[in-house]
């Protein structure tokens, strides 16, 4: 699925204390278990945010990106958003435009091509978003 354009939406960027949050849609046609998410990368105004600084929220739970692989009993519903919380030394002001790029790497758990090897989907989406 050519999913690059589906990850971010116009209203994806919100302000948080000490930073911002980027809302992501699952770049696939169905809901997936969080264990299907191999990686998430976020670049803000051209600067790649270190992976360890990102926090991922789904519902009332928070994860490091590296912990998602173990969440094989939590479903990311196709119409729900993952919030990726990004700390910023100087958070943008409300209404400010921010250049955001996200890359989501998925492993599709029902599409096996060899033992323990699965079809992947890589979606990259870059947009200028207004902080709300």
């Amino acid at each position, binding site marked *: 699925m050519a999913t690059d*354009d589906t990850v971010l939406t116009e209203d994806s960027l919100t302000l948080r204390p000490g930073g911002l949050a980027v809302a992501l849609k699952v770049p696939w*046609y*169905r*809901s997936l278990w969080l264990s299907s998410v191999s990686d998430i990368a976020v670049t803000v105004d051209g600067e790649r945010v270190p992976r360890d600084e990102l926090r991922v929220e789904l519902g009332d739970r928070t994860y490091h990106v590296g912990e998602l692989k173990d969440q094989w009993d939590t479903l990311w519903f196709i119409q729900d958003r993952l919030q990726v919380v990004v700390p910023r030394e100087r958070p943008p002001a409300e209404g400010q435009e921010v250049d955001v790029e996200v890359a989501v790497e998925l492993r599709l*758990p*029902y599409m096996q091509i*060899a033992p323990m090897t699965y079809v992947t989907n890589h979606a990259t989406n870059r947009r200028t978003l207004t902080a709300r």
Partner: protein
Amino acid sequence: MTAPGTPVQGVTLYSFTRAFHGRRYTFEELVREVARRGLGPGLELVGFQSIKGFPDVDPGFVTRFRSLIDETGLVPTCLSANADAGLRRDRMLTDDELVDYMRPQIAVARELGFPVVRVQISLTPDDMERLLPVAEQYGVRLGLEIHSHQHPRHPRIQALLERYEKLGSPLLGFVPDWGASLRAVPSTLLRKYREAGYDEDLLTGLEELWREHHAEGPPMTEPQHGRWFGQVVELAHRHGAGDRAIEMAVNITGLFGHAPASDWADVLPWAVHTHGKFYEIDADGDEPSVPVRELIGLWVGSGYSGAISSEWEGFHWNDWDDPFEVVAGEQALIRASAAASGSRVIVDPAEARRLVGLPGGRNI
């Protein structure tokens, strides 16, 4: 001689993935839109797409879904389940775990009134045999989808067929997906790649490779498919499409299958539902990449009177066409093809319910 079949017209909500994914419709709104446009009567869902929390479905949803079906007059045909054997990162699910993973999905199908559950190739003949008592318990049929790059003569499908013949249960069967039998690379995909700036040599190369594979015939082994996959990846890299190489290979070798339409004859007696996969409808109302007329001729000729879900997969790259209109286009083509084959397609809900409805209605 077999009496001509009368397939039931229908659609899978998968065709409208972009609209649902983009939150332009709630689930209920989408079902109503399908009914309003006359794209039923058959209705298929992908459980993990349409239903939040699937397969843990709360009683409130079951009640709401049943009243939605009563209100719209649509006929539930197939609930598509997923066999997520790679759920965990540390190991594959064991056979026991995979059977347990499928069980609640099958139970939900019955609760919602679906007579057929689509299951996937991760399931072996042994798994299907172990799931038979579950199908019997809930009184639904299990159809293992024959999806490109698998095809009717693939050894894995033949092994399933052999087991089905041994078990002889009407509750085990197949869901043929027409994507296994393409006749050309969809032009809309090439248009999308062209618009994305990939050079003409790459596009020509992709089509040439697909035609070479087509001449070779559908892949009988995984190494053969792997070799094709590698050829597309290598070609894409040579033309500087490295970040899109895997996607191109998945599309060219994974979606657009090479099985001659006539190969379906062996498995059609075991077809419990059909995915009328298609990509585009041209100005003449034909599908240039899927031989719909020929396929319908075979389906009708084999006496098939199950549902055919129009399954538009063009949305993967095609964000310009209206999914409701292209689905209506394929359904018109299917009706005309059935008429040309001396039969007809069922569009009346009562007739459809008699042919494909859950026996005994929804009461368990």
